[in-house]
């Protein structure tokens, strides 16, 4: 059996004293793709925020182990340095900060944390060229200010481009498919499939089955009312598409 990358046990979390996650369990092994589906407001993004360490999202109970480290003890940047990646549902625009300079800084901080040599300018530019192609991101966009003036689809592709650059152990993609037309969806999905291997894992948060036609999950989970209430294979997604979530939450 391959090793466990993420093990969430009995996770309770709140925002502004409001209980959102209420005893969530999830185990992700290397080599796996998990889909988390669920109605709007179920707490899917909250899960992503808690795991990545966003301010204001507080774990009140439970335990999260990430490849042998206690994830909740770490600052957000340390979580990234340990190999966690979050593709944001709403990527942030940062005027004045160049996309590639910021990525180079990030990459070098991650390398320094892992006691590796910084990336050379040449090596870095080669990486940018190769990996922006994975998601067919115009290399001009790569050098612009982070997400500024990007279309919705370009922002999502930029997230996957960053994932390709940072090579995380575990990537959580929060609604990366929303707002994408079918071509962009195919490109993004192909990118994710290309980056996937037996040593890493992907958690796809989505509320459409559509994405799962292109990225085949090993497991499909339903998150409702702060918990995983059902787990199945890809066929569960099709069933949800047909019947909605009501039959599960009744």
């Amino acid at each position, binding site marked *: 059996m391959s090793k466990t990358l993420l093990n969430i046990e009995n996770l309770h979390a709140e925002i502004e004293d409001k209980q959102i996650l209420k005893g969530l369990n999830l185990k992700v092994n290397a080599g796996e793709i998990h889909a988390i589906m669920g109605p709007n407001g179920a707490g899917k993004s909250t899960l992503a925020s808690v795991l990545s360490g966003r301010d204001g999202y507080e774990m009140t109970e439970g335990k999260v182990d990430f490849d042998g480290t206690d994830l909740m003890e770490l600052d957000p940047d340390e*979580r*990234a340095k340990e190999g966690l*990646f979050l593709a944001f549902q709403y*990527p942030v625009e940062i005027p*004045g*900060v160049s996309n590639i300079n910021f*990525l180079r*800084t990030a990459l070098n*901080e991650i390398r320094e944390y892992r006691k590796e040599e910084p990336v050379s300018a040449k090596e870095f530019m080669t990486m940018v060229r190769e990996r922006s192609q994975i998601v067919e991101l115009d290399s001009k966009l790569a050098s612009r*200010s982070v997400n500024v003036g990007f279309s919705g689809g370009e922002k999502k592709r930029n997230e996957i481009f960053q994932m390709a650059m940072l090579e995380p152990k575990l990537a959580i993609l929060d609604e990366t498919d929303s707002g994408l037309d079918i071509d962009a969806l195919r490109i993004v999905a192909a990118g994710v499939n290309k980056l996937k291997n037996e040593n890493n894992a992907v958690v796809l948060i989505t509320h459409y089955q559509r994405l799962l036609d292109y990225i085949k999950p090993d497991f499909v989970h339903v998150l409702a009312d702060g918990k995983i209430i059902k787990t199945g294979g890809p066929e569960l997604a099709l069933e949800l598409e047909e019947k909605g979530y009501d039959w599960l939450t009744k």
Partner: protein
Amino acid sequence: MNVQTDTKLQSFLSGFEGVRENAIQNEAWDALQYLDFPTTRDEYWKYTRISKIANAKLSSGKASNTILDLEKHLLSDQFVIIENGIFRADLSSFDLSKVNVKVESTDTLVQTTANMDELFQAMNTALAEQTLFISIPKKQVWETPVQVIYITTENQIMSNTRLVFESEDFAEGHVITTFINEGNSQSLSNHYTEVLVAENAHLKLDKIQVGNGWHVATENVWQDGNSTFKINTMTLKGDIVRNNLNIEVAGENCETFLNGAVITKENQLVDNHSFVNHLVSNCMSDENYKYVLDGKSTGVFNGRVVVQPDAQKINAYQQNGNVLLSDFAKINSKPELEIYADDVKCSHGSTTGQLDEDALFYLQARGISKDKARKILVSAFVGEVLQSLDNEKVLAYVNQVLFDEFGWTEM
């Protein structure tokens, strides 16, 4: 005239008698007899308390005869060094076949646009021993900037430095002034600049304030028709800094650019008062000041733009953005637009806030530490203003100071 004898100014000036043989200097000295230090009750000084300066016991400075290591501050091969208000011919270096630079005793002063009702201008006019003239003859285009380094090396002095940057028609040139004071927080540098931008001339002034202590600088700028004037004021150090920038746009088809960056920490107080006076039609002015305030520091921005009656088809833009990095930092931002003509396009905006939390988290989520992420965001914030420094050496110098003083790295 009823001469007051017991003002703060009188006791402040007691160390500065000196001989004045010049009518203008005498007039300035006379003005000082009835002026006094402003207080926060004066509208023009409402947010800027200068009692520390008023209560200081200062004397006039002298130049030393020691070698000063100014290598890292040099941004041009044409440079003038002024130490404690006095010209250091031995350290300066300029080629008179390339640039027209001369230092004269202020005794020979025949005209000035200094306002004798304003304390610091009157004080400068009365007390400055020397005036530096940088004069670009007709149709000359100077490729190399002239740098003037003003350095304070003594404690408890007031240096009154005076610069005239003037041009004839169709002239082009660039002056960089750098104000340095590496130790003496109890000294005042009182600087006065007159700029004359003649018809069709294009002048640029970069003003880099990297000195400790107290610093007051006044620029009186006059623009004739079809001219361009650009000033970049970078305030990166100083316990109390006050800039008074006054621009009279007196000819049509002029362009005027005012950019400013203020980066502070600790207890610094930095105040920029600007005044653009549109006297005639068909001109454009564009002002952009950005402040990043940390610690218990205070920033003041007062941007006054006046469009006089009949000055039609003016485009005047003003922008002031501020980021407060600490709960104790303060900004007082006040745009003052007075429009007396009807066919005018004016816009102004002032924003104040903390760093964008979402952007901060986004950078952290990519593996960048919070501290570094903050620095990236603040340098991006002022980056827009730094980009107006189109001289690469000046930009590199400013970035170096930001790195040394604040640990910033460019993005």
